[in-house]
């Protein structure tokens, strides 16, 4: 059977009100791919966290700056790319939210959740500026469920 890929892309301005829109699109796409309800929920949460980071930490809430979200889907997996237009950041400098001294910090759990719920999360700097987050989630197979 032919293994075809599809790409869906959208661009939003840096405004938190658009995170709901991106989450809705994500929910539709995970349904198309056929993810189970719980997996779909955590994928949507991861995308939401990534978009919030792009708006808040990448674009520094500058509503003139865009956030690009691209979904590449196949029958087996979903890959999501979230790009901001900020100055880039070093993911190794994020404090560990599980460190006892950070437990009561109200911030700093978004990327931890992304890494927990997705199979792969990679950060890279775009050659023309900004950060790209790539997240991959494979559909659970019968053997792995």
């Amino acid at each position, binding site marked *: 059977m032919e293994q075809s890929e599809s790409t869906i892309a959208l661009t939003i301005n840096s405004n938190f009100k658009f995170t709901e829109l991106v989450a809705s699109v994500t929910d539709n796409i995970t349904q198309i791919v056929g993810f189970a309800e719980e997996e779909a929920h955590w994928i949507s949460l991861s995308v*939401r966290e990534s978009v919030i980071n792009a708006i808040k930490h990448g674009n520094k809430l500058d509503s003139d700056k865009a956030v690009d979200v691209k979904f590449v889907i196949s029958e087996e997996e979903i890959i999501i790319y979230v790009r901001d237009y900020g100055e880039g950041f070093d993911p190794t400098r994020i404090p560990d939210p599980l460190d006892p001294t950070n437990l009561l910090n109200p911030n700093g759990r978004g990327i*931890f959740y992304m890494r927990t719920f997705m199979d792969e999360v990679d950060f890279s700097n775009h050659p023309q500026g900004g950060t790209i987050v790539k997240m991959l989630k494979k559909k659970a197979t019968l053997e792995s469920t």
Partner: protein
Amino acid sequence: MSLTINQRTVGDVSVLDLSGKVTIGAGSVQLREAIRKLIDGNNKKILLNLGDVSYVDSSGIGELVHSFTTTSNAGGVLKLLNLTKKIQDLLAITKLLTVFETFTSEDEAIKSFNK
């Protein structure tokens, strides 16, 4: 759907029934204001009922932590009631179930404030 907060009093405990989403923006801000109002009114035994919360992101979890520390710093106690499975998962994987006292029974939760 954004967040709706209904406040009621059981004995000397203020119960906040949350319904909707606790996410970045409106939901988090509403919860912060509700907690601040209780603390300012010297209501320092607070029970958050999360049974009808449909969605929480990391900002919402952060707001629960902020609510907890705000209440504790004011000499009060904040506990959680009726965690959904997904909220429980988010709290568990970030070790926050070791921070919050949680209940599935409102009666037991209310009684625990005066033990």
